[in-house]
């Protein structure tokens, strides 16, 4: 008989852990995660070998070269990392409040649409770049916020299931994008929007410190740090933490739970919308139904695994974007489809999710006759 019991919650830097001192506890935590990661890489390695008959270690080396080989690759990696991190940062307040916002994909997309609309309709107005960027940023945030507010209001007032509501909002956003594509089509008949303002570069992120993607990174870094303090130190952040823990405590503390839910989702949606702005004005310079590219979903996993800690989110985002870019490199090198990156990403996430169990629960052989409850 195996007996499973809950481990007392472990907080990395706080207090003792099941009688062990904090560093031993931290060590166990880290060890479990590492074992999970190594197993995941091993399983992916076997898979890679089965498909390509290549030494997995060479393949992983090739992946590293594909991501870090040139400074341009590193910058692209940083840009994509920043984008994924921004979405995760946007989701963090919602998830900390235990509001399952599965709708980041849609929120990104409407943000991207708002940005594209600004670029297309105002691109020839010769607005100074900083002002123009500000307008686009605000527009994208408003669009994302709207996408967040709608399910939040229904959840707060009538308890409508937010998981499925936000999921459906994604598809409304996708169809909305498909609605605009024929209107913004360029060239005609391509059924794509094409590069917006390719000649004038109006609304494109300017180079900062000589780097094309520096602005993306600065924006995300600022928001990430701001979110850290917002969640940790602000009155709103405090309300989010309490509402997420227990609604009755929130009421006891004289909080307006409905207001907190709607306000937090407004913020969450707005930041995800801003990610759409970054994706269009700061990276792709076009918009399609694939602009969000599954980041809305991956970011959920990032935020969840990081327990909403922005630092940990950055680490996990870095790893996932590395895998994604690396896998695409080997895929093109061996003439395989890019989708191999999703497979490896899935396997690694499965192992990380599974390893949570060994952190949260203690497994021991049951002692006869000691079936004590509570």
């Amino acid at each position, binding site marked *: 008989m195996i007996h499973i019991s809950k481990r007392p919650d472990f907080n990395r830097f706080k207090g003792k852990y099941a009688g062990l001192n904090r560093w031993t506890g931290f060590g166990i935590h880290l060890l479990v995660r590492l074992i999970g990661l190594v197993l995941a890489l091993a399983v992916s390695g076997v898979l890679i070998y089965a498909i390509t008959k290549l030494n997995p270690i060479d393949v992983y080396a090739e992946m590293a070269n594909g991501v870090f080989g040139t400074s341009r690759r590193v910058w692209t990696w940083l840009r994509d990392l920043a984008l994924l991190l921004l979405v995760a940062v946007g989701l963090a307040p919602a998830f900390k409040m235990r509001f399952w916002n*599965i709708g980041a994909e849609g929120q990104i997309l409407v943000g991207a649409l708002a940005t594209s609309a600004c670029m297309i309709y105002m691109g020839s107005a010769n607005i100074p770049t900083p002002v123009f960027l500000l307008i686009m940023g605000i527009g994208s945030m408003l669009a994302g916020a709207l996408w967040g507010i709608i399910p939040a209001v229904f959840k707060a007032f*009538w308890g409508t299931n937010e998981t499925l509501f936000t999921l459906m909002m994604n598809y409304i956003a996708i169809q909305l994008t498909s609605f605009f594509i024929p209107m913004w089509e360029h060239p005609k008949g391509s059924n794509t929007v094409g590069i917006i303002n390719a000649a004038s570069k109006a609304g494109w992120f300017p180079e900062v410190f000589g780097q094309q993607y520096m602005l993306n990174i600065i924006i995300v870094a600022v928001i990430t740090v701001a979110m850290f303090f917002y969640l940790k130190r602000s009155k709103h952040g405090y309300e989010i933490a309490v509402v997420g823990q227990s609604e009755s405590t929130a009421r006891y503390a004289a909080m307006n739970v409905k207001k907190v839910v709607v306000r937090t989702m407004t913020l969450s949606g707005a930041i995800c919308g801003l990610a759409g702005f970054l994706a269009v004005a700061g990276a792709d310079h076009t918009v399609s139904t694939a602009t969000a590219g599954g980041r809305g979903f991956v970011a959920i996993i990032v935020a969840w695994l990081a327990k909403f800690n922005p630092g940990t989110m950055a680490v996990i985002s870095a790893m996932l974007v590395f895998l994604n870019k690396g896998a695409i490199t080997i895929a093109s090198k061996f003439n395989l489809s890019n989708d191999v990156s999703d497979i490896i990403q899935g396997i690694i996430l499965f192992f990380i*999710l599974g390893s949570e169990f060994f952190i949260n629960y203690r497994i021991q052989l049951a002692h006869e006759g000691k079936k004590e409850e509570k």
Partner: protein
Amino acid sequence: MGTVLTQIISLITTAISFGTVIMYGSLGETLTEKSGHLNLGVPGIMYMGGIGGLIGAFLYETNAASPVPGVGLIIALASALVCSLLGGLIYSFLTITLRANQNVTGLTLTIFGSGLANFFGGSLSKLAGGVGQISVAVTSSAFRATQHLTDGIPYFDEIFCNYGFMVYLAIIIAAVLSFIIKRTSIGLNLRAVGENPATADAAGINVIRYKYAATCVGACISGLGGLYYVMDYIKGTWANDGNIEALGWLAVALVIFATWKPLRSIWGAYLFGALYWLYNFIPGQSRSMQEIFKMLPYLVTIIVLISVSLRRKKEDQPPSWLGRSYFREDR
């Protein structure tokens, strides 16, 4: 007059053949959700079922000297079931045994499944040393074979007999599921597990076994949706266009629309199919407006979701333990 009728018949047949994909997905998910597990990996499982069937049929057709359609059909069916079962097992092991978060695990499964399917869909013929698009015409013909029953009654065959066997199989599965859930002890126990696992546990029901069974059988049924899409709807080829994923999410939506009742999934699926393709039958639409029409299934689902929460009719609510893991010592 004649053209209107033809249009209507055409819409009905489109709705039925398209809706069947969604129906499979939603029937599997209904069964899973009845045990209290919200599996957002349905799109991934449908992908796995689709690619599994395709790989099985492809290996058979490339290796057999003269492939027989019936054999290909059985191989495709079996390999689709094995692949979707694998997806179900990954999800069950993580969420039931390891108690990982259901939403996050499901989303990961969707990422994994779509990656796996699109990878093999895109590279399979290359891997096997061939060139060009993958195609399993022989097996697909078995899936698409139709049996016309009558000749006399006008339009009857056109509307009711114009489909491969999997369209009818879906209806049978819906009826069987409905019977099992509503009329058998197993179904009663399953409902109790999803509603209140602690009570079920106290009544001597093996909660873990029921959850595994419902999730895995559910995954197999969902996976058949992918198989049907690949073998019948797109005629034994592969398209890396994200359609299965969209259909998978529609399937999750249909579960809500059908308020967790398999029989309602039947007409719900056909309605979704009709709503999805409605733009084709309304003349004079611009391409943009067509896309707005395609929002309908999602909008309808949101409306259902809202009205379910407003009415609070107990029969139409999700299983009350949906999304939460059960640990006996938590009580």
